[in-house]
């Protein structure tokens, strides 16, 4: 199967570029980043605040079934151009990772397809490498949590 999502992390650089082509019109792809209740569905996190405007800010929070906070993040929006781009910071709370800068660019490919390019800039090369390594632990955690949630539903 073709890998739709690509991650480009050049050695020694403190940034990564994530690209993805969607079978969605540009407007729908952008909408997925704008409507809090939609963001909640695909990000799997609660959206406490999402102000889609220059100098706006956002806050995400995820709790487990017991109500413990497992993920909390926030950031500030620097640029917001509908159907084109979002520039924002992202900071994971209760972690030692410094804030990162994200450039999201939305492109129309055809009437029914679109592309997202997400450039993430980290404070240092080491921060980037640590963050890339994180899902090794964290991603597996999420997969397990998701699996657990599905298993719980079957009960």
């Amino acid at each position, binding site marked *: 199967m073709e890998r739709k999502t690509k991650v480009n992390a050049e050695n020694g650089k403190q940034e990564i570029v994530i690209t993805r082509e969607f079978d969605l019109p540009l407007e729908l792809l952008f909408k997925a980043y704008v409507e809090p209740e939609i963001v909640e569905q695909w990000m799997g996190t609660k959206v406490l605040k999402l102000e889609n405007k220059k100098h706006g800010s956002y806050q995400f929070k995820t709790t487990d079934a017991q109500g413990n906070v497992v993920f909390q993040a926030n950031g500030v929006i620097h640029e917001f151009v509908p159907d084109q781009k979002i520039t924002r910071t992202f900071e994971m709370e209760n972690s030692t990772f410094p804030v990162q800068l994200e450039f999201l660019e939305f492109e129309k490919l055809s009437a029914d397809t679109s592309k997202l390019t997400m450039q993430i800039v980290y404070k240092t090369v080491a921060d980037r490498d640590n963050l890339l390594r*994180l899902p090794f632990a964290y991603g597996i955690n999420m997969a397990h949590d998701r699996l657990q949630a599905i298993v719980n539903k079957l009960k």
Partner: protein
Amino acid sequence: MNLRRDVFQAIADPTRRAILLLLASQTMTAGAIAANFDTARPTVSKHLQILTECELLKYEQTGREIYYHLNPKKMKEIADYIEPFRKMWDDRFNKLESVMKKYK
């Protein structure tokens, strides 16, 4: 010794995954690591021992304290370490796509 199996056993436990997560960006003493968990300190020590045995963690003794840190070499050896990161985003974007198709 089947190293691969050992590593996967090591990361199969949520506490051990949480320890790897803690150490992803810093060096910590056993005490500081244990302070992050409700579990008894000997239990955390056991987890640290398992992670050290399969070389995911390394440690240095400084005076009375033992400092733990990730062994990036081993982390890289056992897997293409970008793949889980890519997979995480791929899953997320697949979800986005399926959610948005309902709005078409």
